[in-house]
């Protein structure tokens, strides 16, 4: 039994009969950064919800360190595209939410919240309400809030999908840094191939209808990455390869649709 996250033969068919995922085999070692790329309809988000425990697979098993996932919990924090902060809580109180449920002392909670606010660069906004933050700042709070629970794995569902290009680049560099600082395992779903290759140590490409693993590619780029790495031949070659795979499986998917 391997350490880390293990999906074995995972399938998901919704009650209406829609077969979204089938026969997914995927293992993620502790500390890895894996991006799942795929066109819309490949069941990327469903895959993440299965790992989060928000959905139950209709086939196969999802395990962490050999123990099956039975429901959502703070060991698998999820951040979605809209972040979903608590709008009535200040930034600091948002980050503190998971810690409040763990019954640790107020002083310890405050210390940890301070650390994560510092890590995501929002110390100055500790007392602000989410409504007054920009989209990128809100996503930083959502990531800090999930990380404060020290999850085994951080699940990111298109976390930067709603941001403008410049903010998105800042957030990508920020996320790489946070990953290296905290050593958290990250599984991120995105349709943005450039983002996937830039961030991940491994890119998994999903085919559509039903979603299944089409390719699993290691990213052999330096651990220290800045935006310039995107112009290197190695990066471009890998990006092209992944883009072709995503497009291939997307075309196959649309070609099979009637009309």
């Amino acid at each position, binding site marked *: 039994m391997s350490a880390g996250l293990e999906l074995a033969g995972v399938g998901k068919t919704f009650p209406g009969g829609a077969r979204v995922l089938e026969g997914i085999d995927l293992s993620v070692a502790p500390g890895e950064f894996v991006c799942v790329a795929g066109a819309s309809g490949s069941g990327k988000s469903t895959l993440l*919800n299965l790992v*989060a*425990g*928000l959905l139950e697979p209709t086939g196969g098993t999802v395990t962490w360190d050999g123990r099956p996932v039975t*429901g*959502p*919990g*703070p060991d*698998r*924090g*999820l*951040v*979605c595209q*809209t972040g*979903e902060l*608590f*709008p*009535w809580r200040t930034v600091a109180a948002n980050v503190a*939410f*998971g810690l*409040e*449920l*763990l019954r640790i002392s107020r002083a310890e909670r405050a210390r940890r919240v301070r650390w994560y606010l510092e890590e995501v660069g929002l110390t100055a906004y500790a007392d602000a*309400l*989410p*409504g007054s933050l920009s989209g990128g700042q809100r996503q930083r709070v*959502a990531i800090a*809030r*999930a990380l404060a*629970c020290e999850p085994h794995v951080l*699940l990111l569902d298109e976390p930067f999908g709603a941001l403008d290009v410049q903010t998105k680049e800042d957030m990508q560099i920020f996320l790489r840094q946070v990953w290296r600082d905290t050593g958290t395992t990250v599984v991120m779903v995105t349709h943005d191939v450039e983002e996937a290759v830039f961030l991940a140590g491994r890119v998994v490409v999903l085919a559509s209808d039903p979603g299944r693993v089409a390719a699993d590619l290691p990213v052999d780029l330096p651990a220290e990455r800045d935006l310039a790495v995107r112009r290197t031949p190695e990066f471009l070659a890998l990006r092209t390869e992944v883009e072709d795979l995503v497009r291939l499986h997307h075309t196959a998917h649309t070609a099979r649709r009637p009309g």
Partner: protein
Amino acid sequence: MSTVDELPPAARARETRGRADWPELPRHPARRARAGWLAPRREISPAARWTLRALSLLVPLAVWVALSTSGRVDPTFLPTPAATWDAWWEMARSGELWTDTAASVRRVLLGFGLALLISVPLGFAMGTWRWALAALEPIIGLVRYWPAGAFIPLLIIWLGLGESSKLAVLVIGVVFFNTLMVAEAVRRVPQRLLEASMTLGATPGVLVRKVIFPYALPGIIDAARVNSAAAWNLVVIAELFAATSGLGYRIVRSGRFLQTDRIFAVLIVIGVIGILMDVGLRLLRDRIGRWTP
């Protein structure tokens, strides 16, 4: 006939791919959709806004003054503002206005409070749990169409002529609407927010206390604000029948003696108290819901 090359670029592009015989689209001179007073949501100046607000009260008052002092309307049907003021002063000095107001306000606080105690938990349950919604929505959806006023004879038979039948009218008139409105406010809590909370370790109890309730609270207060107006209407209606105190009772009694000036005075008092209640709940809502956009 001109050659294609002499045409302007747009028309030249049209010559290709079989669109040559399409007529020019009519171009209307600037359709002023954002100008004029009929343009939807167009801002008005603060001066215009305050003038219109003042006129909203002053025009009806002026019509009232003009009609009642013209001598063409019998003062028994339409008292003058001065006579209404005198009637108000008379009732205020004798103290009956205050005891009547206190009696009505007390009934509203008790009856509406009771309705809130029933409807907020019920509506909260309906908005939170699908099983509660399935079990309660059909019956409440039906019962809310029964007018509370129609229950008055039945309630007098069941509960007698005392306070309890009047409170019951209030509760019946408010409780069903408020339940459905609270349920709607609770249902607006985003599913994604609940899911995010679950992945932070929230159990069902935590979701109810720390996520659903705070998110829905401003909406619950809004529902209460709307229905407090209904409660205030209903207490006056309840007092029209077999009461010995209250503003509704004062209206019936004045009507019996053709004291229309007193009826007018009581109606104005009812309106003012209603506005004060509304403003109070609005302030409370703005304070609690500061975070809402």
